[in-house]
């Protein structure tokens, strides 16, 4: 059901963990629906220097979190804000229809983290 790429990111997810002194943290989803994504950003000069995630959720939730962190790492904040769920899906070589919502969550988690950063840093 999952592409190889999804399984690869699920089995060896990149950037799992927390950033203690994160510049921005975004958490979306809720436990009731079975998925929560939390993204930590370390930002220097508007560039995402480091990103970590923690996810409670299904295989697709973990894989989309992982790929999303990869896609924004090293990018500028403005570039990262342009991340779409479609780009997440494409980067994973597709997702089953009932799992598309995970890619939406990943997009939202990134945006929430950046918003948090902007708010904290008055941008």
């Amino acid at each position, binding site marked *: 059901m999952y592409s190889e790429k999804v*399984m690869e990111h*699920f*089995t060896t*997810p990149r950037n*799992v963990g*927390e950033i203690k002194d994160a510049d921005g943290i975004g*958490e979306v989803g809720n*436990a*009731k*629906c*079975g*998925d*929560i*994504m*939390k993204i930590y950003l370390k930002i220097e000069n508007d560039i995402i220097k480091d990103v970590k995630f*923690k*996810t*409670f*959720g*299904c*295989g*697709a*939730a*973990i894989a989309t979190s992982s790929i999303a962190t990869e896609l924004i790492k090293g990018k500028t904040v403005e570039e990262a804000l342009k991340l779409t769920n479609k780009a997440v899906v494409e980067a994973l070589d597709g997702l*089953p*229809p*009932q*799992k598309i919502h995970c890619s939406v969550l990943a997009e939202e988690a990134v945006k929430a983290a950046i918003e948090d950063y902007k708010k904290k840093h008055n941008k």
Partner: protein
Amino acid sequence: MNKRIYLDHSATTYTKPEVLEEMLPVFNEYFGNPSSIYSYGREAKRLVDKARDRVAKALNALPEEIFFTAGGSEADNWALRGVAYANKERGNHIITSKIEHHAILHTCQQLEKEGFKVTYLPVDKYGMVSLEDLKNSITDETILISIMYANNEIGTIQPIDEIGKIAKESKIYFHTDAVQAVGNIKIDVKEQNIDLLSLSAHKFYGPKGVGALYIKKGTRITNLITGGGQERGRRAGTENVPGIVGLGKAIELATENIDSYNEKLLKLRTKLINGIMERIPYTLVNGHPEKRLPGNANFCFKYIEGESLLLNLDMKGIAASSGSACTSGSLDPSHVLLAIGLPHEIAHGSLRLTLGEENTEEDIDYVLEVLPEIVQRLRDMSPLYEKVKGGNQ
């Protein structure tokens, strides 16, 4: 990693070699149509009759009370719709439970749209219906009680004897979805006052795509599949003779060996449950402590989600299932886990391990070795677990 440990016998089982062996000549030697009068046909009919006798014997029913279907779902649909339509002048009320299989629940919902009234009895934290609730919900309009024998997720076995008595006293038909029970629990439809019972061969080492509905003689019921005169005019369609033969052999084997099979599974399950509870904190066991299917173990591991657990187990060669929404693509986790009172977030972290014939102590040892690591790994990835480690819970 070529290890493959199958721990999902409630989903389906392989077909036993002895069963397949009886089926094989039916495909191309005794392949006649049982409705035909020539020898090919008569041979096929004899095989169907033999299978019917075996099923009847396993349930203590009469052979003429057994009707072959394409599986448990068709049997459930037939029982509900058939009794509802045939008895609608007598009343329009059906009683069932909140933890039935979808073949019952969705069919009841359909009947509601058609004007029938359905009471969905709640269950306690073990998944048991209450006999008081049942009695209280009976009205003059009640025509059918349909309560499953044993639950497919949490394994809880309902008080079928008592339900049968209540139904009998109230002169209401009693159907039980025994798809998970047949082959695992001794059943006596006469003794237990069961009027209709559904079963499916692939749950007890028979083939997929064949099941049966037991219909007590004299029960008023319409047909579900209309057409030719097969199954004494009650279920149309050329008989699935190889499947029926397989069902017959499988039910005979299962009922012959039921005691030793139960004993074996119970032993393994005790080891499994104790082992998991010792090794993995923040874990619940779902279902009834004693009144449960011998092979069924159902857990909730807090702070993680079922599908990712299953995928990790699969990578270690272990096949299991979960009541998590993510395995089904819906948002709500299993209605059964919600009905026993689990909050959504805990229900999402469920794992069902159902044991069978070929499982060994070593299999359990392997699960006990592999599962704690997987759970820990997922917890370490989970933002919910963060908070726990921080001290609370």
